[in-house]
């Protein structure tokens, strides 16, 4: 069964877009992350209920014009998010 990626709860994150970069304060850890696209878009698409990698790419494709729809690339982004503590796998 494919892993489901869940974003941290909305209350756990303070998200402030700055320019192409977005500042995210993660309340649980007190760590600030500066992130670029497609990270904010991924977090918004995942939500707390989460999606599998395949479902995420499809969901992103509905909302955005994905120029490089590549599961390996998306997987790398998700790995980064998990390492940063902003996404967990269920």
């Amino acid at each position, binding site marked *: 069964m494919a892993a489901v990626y869940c974003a941290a709860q909305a209350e756990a994150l303070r998200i402030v877009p700055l320019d192409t970069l977005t500042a995210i304060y993660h309340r649980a850890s007190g*760590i*600030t*992350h*500066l*992130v*670029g*696209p*497609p*990270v904010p*878009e991924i977090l*918004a698409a995942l939500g707390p209920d989460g999606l599998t990698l395949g479902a995420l790419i499809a969901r*992103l494709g509905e*909302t*955005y*014009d*994905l*120029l*490089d*729809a*590549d599961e*390996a*690339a*998306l*997987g*790398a*982004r998700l790995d*980064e*998010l998990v390492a*940063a503590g*902003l996404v967990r796998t269920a």
Partner: protein
Amino acid sequence: MSEDGEQRNDIPEREGVSTGRRALMLGAVGASAIVSIRPALASTAVSIVHCQIPVPDAARASGWIAADGSVVPSGTAGAFAPPRQPLKGEAVKQALAGGQLPGVEYERSQAYMKYVRNLHSGTSGFTCFASLQMPRG
């Protein structure tokens, strides 16, 4: 899939359902999209106060420094007697950039600098050494 790679920034996510979807790139596998802010504490606070690095640390104060930077019993052949005073942070910073410790001949300076480079957290002088390597904002 659109051939047009231009970012169209003004169209918010949930509006414009069929036409005008904003372009989004997932990025390369090896690239990174997240920078986590690390505390600047060690560098800035220590830069405010000039720091020093005892060679060797107080726990091994009677030791000499071998050519590879390790601490050896005093008098060991080929090793160097330690400096009388702790090394000043500014001097170490210049030596890290490729210079030499002032007033110290080449091989002795190399040995001392190898000792410094081997410092780890918990050893006296480590905070100073760590701060010298970070650019001060």
